[in-house]
């Protein structure tokens, strides 16, 4: 059993944890929820040996322990599956699983790796986690979901009894999520304690036996999923009653389209996408992972070569070669990959805000005072919490970074803005502010395209939703009766939309097909 008592941890600017006590029992899936900055990640990093707590104790099987490093935590059976996976792409699956713990051959006083034994053990571990992956494959050739399974197998290889999973489903499709859940249940049944961190409350409610809510570095409450609703959980996280997450929808004005996309195709998975959006209108692009939503946006903005189709901006044919061309025509795209593409983490608030449109502040030498004024303006308008204008934005919360990414484009005064997953990984409060902002932008006359995997978000925000499936438009929905999660799911999954069919029920957890088991064993034998 793993227990923490009175854990405290301060950083220069904030007190991240203020006396948190929790117990994680054997075989229990324990959910940990809270807004960004509530202290979940800090607590997990303390358990995983990445941070040392300022005060408090960690007990493993009632014995107090101090973890000065990840390996010390690992020695007590604690393993963490990070949101960003930690695998070496150029090594094989087996090599990754046994990295640093390779089985040795007795020859040459054990300096040689017993590759065959390693691959055999890896194969059986992979079977354990329900992954029919060839252990000799290179990790970089695996899908994200497969890589995650390799991470879990790696944790099991080190005899982990406590598995900390940080947003494990963020990168998974619906089906992959279901199979991950059945794996989690099996691991729990075998006595592994699992700490499950997620923003997605329905998932937390579905998989966890107990759920602990953190807020401002303190434990609010530990609840059982059957005692709370999703809404109640969200309220416990935010600490106030949640009303009106989405601003009121106003009808979009009648006008000629601002952006018209006609039959575009682009590598690798955009085959035939058409849609249009009017000034003041918010449209959604829905679809499963791989349906080509982001790629379509990138093909419009000039980040991908378009091989077919036309794009018109205010009825003028355009062919952007780069986001620079696009911004010159007042079209902006805010990437889904905030940290990798959206903002410069090592630059400060001011530099991030003006980066895309720096020429407006001086042809050669940008005016620092004007830049500062502009940044202050956006910080105020978007309620960005940025205590030090000149500090790198690395330390800001995800929500604030996201607002800066949007501010950067708004500073270029676009008339069309494409927002790709604008609320991914940001907390509820920040999400609500982002929704408000999008609606305000539309009311100010911008044509908005929102790409999102969160259906309630699209339904709550958009006038119309275009659903993509495998690179093509599967359908377009508008009006309150059409904008339902079911309709969107039917279209994006390619299920017949007639109401005779019942909504798909989650398939029961399945064990891996025996055939793949056998082939694995044959290969490793």
């Amino acid at each position, binding site marked *: 059993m793993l227990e923490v008592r009175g854990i405290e941890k301060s*950083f*220069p600017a904030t007190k991240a944890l203020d006396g948190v006590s929790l117990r994680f029992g054997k075989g229990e899936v324990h959910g940990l929820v809270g807004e960004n900055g509530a202290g979940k990640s800090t607590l997990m*990093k303390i358990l995983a040996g*990445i*941070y*040392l707590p*300022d005060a408090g104790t960690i007990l493993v099987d009632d014995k107090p322990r101090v973890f000065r490093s990840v390996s010390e935590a690992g020695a007590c059976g604690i393993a963490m599956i990070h949101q960003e996976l930690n695998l070496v792409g150029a090594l094989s699956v087996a090599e990754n699983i046994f990295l640093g713990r390779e089985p040795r051959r007795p020859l040459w006083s054990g300096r040689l790796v017993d590759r065959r034994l390693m691959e055999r053990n890896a194969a059986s571990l992979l079977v354990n986690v329900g992954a029919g992956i060839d252990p000799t494959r290179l990790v970089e050739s695996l899908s994200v979901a497969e890589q995650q399974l390799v991470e879990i197998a790696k944790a099991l290889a080190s005899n982990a009894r406590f598995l900390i999973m940080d947003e494990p489903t963020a990168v998974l499709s619906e089906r992959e999520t279901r199979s991950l859940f059945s794996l989690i249940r099996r691991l729990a049944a075998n006595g592994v304690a699992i700490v499950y961190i997620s923003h997605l409350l329905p998932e937390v409610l579905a998989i966890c036996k107990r759920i602990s809510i953190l807020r401002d570095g303190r434990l609010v409450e530990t609840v059982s999923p059957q005692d709370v609703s999703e809404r109640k959980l969200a309220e416990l996280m935010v600490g106030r009653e949640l009303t009106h997450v989405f601003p009121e929808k106003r009808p979009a004005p009648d006008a000629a389209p601002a952006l018209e996309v006609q039959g575009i195709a682009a590598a690798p998975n955009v085959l035939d996408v058409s849609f249009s959006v009017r000034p003041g209108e918010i449209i959604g692009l829905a679809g499963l992972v791989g349906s080509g939503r982001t790629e379509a946006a990138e093909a419009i903005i000039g*980040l991908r070569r378009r091989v077919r189709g036309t794009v018109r901006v205010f009825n003028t044919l355009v062919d952007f070669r*780069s*986001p*620079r061309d*696009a*911004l010159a025509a007042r079209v902006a*795209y805010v*990437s889904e990959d905030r940290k*990798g*593409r*959206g*903002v*410069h*983490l*090592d*630059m400060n608030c001011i*530099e991030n805000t003006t*980066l*895309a*449109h*720096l*020429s407006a*502040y*001086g*042809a*050669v*030498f*940008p005016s*620092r005072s004007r830049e500062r004024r502009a940044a202050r303006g956006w910080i105020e308008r978007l309620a960005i919490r940025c205590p030090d204008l000149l500090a790198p934005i*690395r330390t800001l919360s995800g929500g604030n970074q996201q607002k800066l990414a949007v501010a*950067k484009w708004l500073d*270029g005064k676009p008339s069309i803005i494409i927002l790709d997953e604008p609320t991914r990984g940001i907390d509820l409060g920040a999400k609500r502010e982002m929704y408000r902002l999008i609606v305000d932008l539309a009311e100010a006359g911008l044509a908005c395209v929102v790409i999102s995997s969160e259906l309630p978000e699209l339904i709550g925000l958009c006038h119309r939703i275009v659903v993509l499936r495998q690179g093509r438009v599967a359908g377009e929905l508008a009006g309150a009766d059409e904008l339902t999660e079911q309709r969107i799911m039917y279209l994006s999954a390619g299920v017949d939309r007639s109401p005779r069919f019942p909504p798909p029920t989650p398939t029961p957890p399945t064990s891996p097909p025996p055939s793949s088991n056998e082939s694995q064993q044959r290969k490793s034998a």
Partner: protein
Amino acid sequence: MVAAETLAVSHAHRVATFLERHGVLVAFAALFLWNAVVADTAEIFRNPENLRNIINQNATTGIVAIGMTLVIVAGGIDLSVGSIMALAGAVALLTVNYLLTAGEDGVVAWSEAFAVMAGVGTGLATGLACGLMNGFLVTVGRLPAFIATLGGLSAYRSITLALADGGEIRSASASVLSAMGRGSVTLVPASVLGPEARPITVTWNILLFIAIAIIGHILLTRSRFGRHVIAVGGNETAARYSAIAVNRVRLATFVIVGLCSAIAGLMATARMNSVSSSQLGSFMELDAIAAVVIGGTSMAGGRGRVWGTVLGVMILAIINNMLVFAEVSPYWHGSVKGVIIILAVLIQRGRRA
């Protein structure tokens, strides 16, 4: 970064942070004071003539290092700087000599001053061309900067050797070119300083170094171009997504370092009034990169400063001067330099795990 957060804000931490940011400044000040006040040779060291000599001898390295700073901040590197220096010098001298060759009638058609100016022009054009070549290989050709300029390092040197037939090119300019290389300006006339004082003068080389340092600093910290350089070096993908013409920015940094190298090459050529095809600028890339690194510029790009590079050059120069005074065998100088580079990086990299 993770580890840095965990450290309590303690006295030691603050000292370490200060050293991380301003280590070069402290090291330079300490070195300078020690040499100018404490050391046995302090009197010789602080003699204005000695100080001027130190700067003058390192002005070429300094100018190349400033260009190198911009390239490295943009996430690149240029190994070909020394070869560009030699090629630019050789082309310049060949131009001068060609123009000063007597025709069939035995008359030299051009004035010496004009010939030297033309030589400077072709030398600079050579630097520009080499920089463009490197830049295009890196941007359009999508080669890693290390590889592209490694090719340049080899090729530009080999062209120089071929032009000079492996030996030396001597200048036909009797006075104008060397006057440029050795000429100086009087800043404070002797009459002001007293009856027996000598005037305070600086060489053209030093003035050029200072001017380029100031331009480089302003370019990097104040200009739009500099901001784009930092953005490209910090995160190239995010820069492209932020409507920055990434290729143009990277190309420009290679052109700038090419021009800086050509200027340095011309300075060295003028000083010697000749070009040694195998010697001029050799190992310059190492000295320039060393100065940039000592100055606190990140080799990963996205973070750097020109003033740090200037201090880096001066630190290496003063240490060299010390070793000469101490009569340490020149064979050992490289080891000392190596230790300094590694120490500088150790102090400045912080505690990023």
